[in-house]
């Protein structure tokens, strides 16, 4: 069975094939919710924003031109929405901090491992340190790191998503990782990470 490319699927969506949209939805639902969860942290808002991306893709299907990768288009819409949401929330005071109970720990998602309470706390603590370090990054650096590290988007594609040059993205990523290294190095040396 051949896997249809995003582009082929989107062209079929443009000609009115609802099933192809469903395939795209299944393919990018989890990555998009994950992207927004890291960008805005609030899980409910992350879902709303992911829904908005799919809605915009669906509404703009008639205007879709296959001159760029589908994911570039998708993440460009997503990044614009995420950055707007971050800016909107800046005026509302500090971000809502999730408690450790709200956050599903990494190990809890692996069914064959039964983490102890101590392991659970360590995982939560590790996640919190990283989350806070990434959240301290300037908006563009944060978007670049999350796209590069967690969404596995190539730096050339990130350049198209953020509408900057490839050199600018490389420099942006270097500065972002340097900021993260400076912030997290003490914890890495202390064995917490």
């Amino acid at each position, binding site marked *: 069975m051949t896997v249809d490319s995003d582009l082929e699927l989107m062209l079929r969506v443009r000609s009115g094939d609802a099933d192809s949209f469903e395939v795209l939805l299944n393919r990018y639902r989890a990555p998009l919710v994950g992207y927004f969860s890291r960008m805005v942290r609030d899980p409910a808002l992350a879902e709303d924003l992911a829904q908005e991306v799919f809605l915009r893709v669906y509404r703009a299907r008639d205007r879709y031109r296959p001159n760029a990768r589908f994911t570039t288009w998708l993440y460009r819409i997503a990044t614009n929405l995420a950055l707007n949401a971050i800016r909107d929330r800046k005026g509302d005071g500090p971000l809502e901090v999730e408690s450790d109970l709200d956050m599903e720990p990494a190990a809890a998602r692996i069914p064959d491992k039964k983490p102890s309470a101590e392991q659970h706390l360590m995982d939560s603590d590790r996640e919190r340190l990283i989350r806070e370090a990434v959240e301290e990054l300037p908006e563009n650096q944060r978007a670049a790191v999350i796209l590069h590290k967690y969404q596995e988007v190539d730096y050339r594609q990130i350049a198209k998503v953020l509408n900057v040059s490839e050199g600018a993205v490389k420099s942006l990523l270097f500065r972002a990782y340097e900021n993260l290294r400076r912030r997290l*190095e003490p914890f890495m040396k202390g064995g917490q990470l």
Partner: protein
Amino acid sequence: MKKDTSCLEREQIFYFAQGMLEGREAERARGHLAVCPACIQTAEGYQRLNHALDSWKVSGPSAWFESRLQATLASTADERRGFFGLPWGRWLAPASLAAMVVFGIVMVHAWRQSGRYSQPAVLTSARLARSGQAQPQIQSAPASVAEGAEAKPADEEMTLYKNLPMLENYDMLANFDVLSELAADSKAAD
């Protein structure tokens, strides 16, 4: 040719560790890292950081994500279906509404215009009579009035028009004392 043995810049090590270097630059970085413990340590530092970042996990979409999205998409499809099921109907609906409003305004305006010209015909004739230009108008007016109705004698018509200035004297008509005096006179006569 002398071999370049100077240490790599931190930025170059980062780009190499992230696979962002190509061609000759990548070759140079690879060659230097094979012999330079200090630069290897820097590269390993980036690898450790990369590994540490892996531990940030997030939850996936909720179970109702798709049903919510499908509901929203269905409502979007209804909106797009538009006016009378026509694909371009969503443009037609406001246009037809605007056309109806304009038509209504024109009709009201036309009705007002027709009312203004037909209703005060007598008053207009009276004004013309006062200004001395009434004669030709007066002669044509009874003809139109007489159509389908009983024709009035010409002298009666003339009397009516002569009395029009007096009938238009609203101050006199408003003075009902004259009428009450008439009533008192008739009682005294009885």
